């Protein structure tokens, strides 16, 4: 096994060109479990943790670019004002030790249906920047994740940044698991009331093969909210919750049944809206 430890993006792309089947290693919090238990025997690894171009975050016009190697701990500490729901999601990932290792680029690249940052990122129409042998490209996250642990990353490409539009208005992140820490979510939901565009934005995790946008539910509630509050009638909130539940395409696994997940997503939707509205 070889482990390349590039310091620059150019070195990382070169290492990936030299070993095209290499596994791209970020924080290792998923990958190392598979290696330790012999489920995966990698021959080559390109470790990205020290690539300078992938660190930190930057404010730009209307959005924030998150370096792929930004850790959950950094998200929790540094992005609470820009993206409270992303910081909240970061705070629910694993444990403090996991959050010092795991990264946003790893969460996007692994593309687990349960990735905790993904519901908010899709709700905000985040985009993914990739660098590769053909140059750079930017893809909507919603299109980049094509299925469970499947992405549109092409051979030789590295995720460099996630661009997240800044939106004014309340944000919520809610997650259900068997305990508060150290669980993979059974269902999770991010909700944003986009006050400038007067749009409800919602993302769902662990209730489908990839993060979902319940667009019919968003459209419905966007038309029902009195945006000067913002306020909404209890019946409209209940109907939104039903539409969110209908949008789910969950499976039954060891963490929960499809029926429970669908129900839970509706409950989370109602709670998130109630917490975001003026009472």
């Amino acid at each position, binding site marked *: 096994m070889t482990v390349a430890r590039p310091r620059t993006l150019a070195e990382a792309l070169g290492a990936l060109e030299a070993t095209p089947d290499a596994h791209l290693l970020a924080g*290792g919090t998923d990958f190392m479990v598979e290696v330790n238990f012999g489920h995966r025997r990698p021959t080559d690894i390109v470790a990205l943790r020290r690539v300078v171009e992938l660190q930190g975050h930057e404010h730009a016009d209307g959005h924030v670019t998150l370096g792929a190697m930004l850790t959950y701990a950094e998200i929790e500490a540094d992005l609470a004002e820009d993206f409270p729901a992303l910081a909240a999601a970061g705070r629910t990932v694993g444990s403090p030790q996991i959050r010092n290792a795991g990264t946003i680029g790893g969460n996007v690249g692994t593309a687990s249906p349960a990735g905790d940052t993904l519901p908010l990122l899709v709700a905000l129409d985040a985009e993914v920047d990739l660098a590769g042998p053909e140059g750079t490209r930017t893809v909507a996250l919603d299109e980049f994740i094509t299925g469970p642990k499947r992405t549109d990353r092409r051979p030789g490409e590295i995720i460099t940044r996630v661009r997240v539009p800044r939106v004014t208005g309340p944000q919520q992140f809610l997650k259900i698991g068997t305990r508060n820490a150290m669980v993979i979510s059974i269902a999770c939901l991010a909700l944003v009331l986009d006050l400038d565009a007067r749009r409800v934005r919602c993302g769902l995790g662990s209730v489908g093969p990839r993060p979902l946008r319940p667009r019919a539910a968003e459209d419905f509630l966007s038309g029902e909210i009195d945006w000067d509050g913002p306020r909404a009638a209890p019946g409209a909130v209940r109907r939104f919750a039903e539409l969110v539940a209908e949008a789910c395409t969950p499976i039954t696994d060891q963490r929960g049944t499809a029926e429970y997940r669908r129900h839970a997503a509706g409950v989370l939707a109602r709670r998130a809206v109630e917490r975001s509205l003026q009472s």
Partner: protein
Amino acid sequence: MTRTEITLSVNGCQHTLALDPRVTLLDALREVIGLTGAKKGCDRGECGTCTVLVDGRRVYACLTLAVMHDGATVTTVEGLADGTDLHPLQQAFISRDALQCGFCTPGQILSAIGLLAEGRATSEQEIREFMSGNLCRCGAYPNIVAAIRDVAGAQ
């Protein structure tokens, strides 16, 4: 097998190691350097007994490759005492009887040092949340929280 040479500063001692790149930081500490304070519990980042500080931040040594930490500074439980003077958290764990079997204790103490450095030990609730990555199957949690509160309060 190709070995990768790295340098680690562990508890103030410089170690130059030629490692199989697949060796985890935990195995490098335990099997190569011979420091067995960090324990191998679950080997999958759930129990926390392998917790060490890398450049001051608490991490699971089982979930990271040693070669990823070339040049890093690592602290394990063996590096906490100053001669026979225990680290305040070590003393607090004894004073508060914060262990039964002791298998989780090195990880608990290193995690608590990380927690104190993060400034997240201002209430019992906060300590419980931010110590959630360290399991104690003997159930010494109330005394672990009390020990951490003692040290946090003294700072």
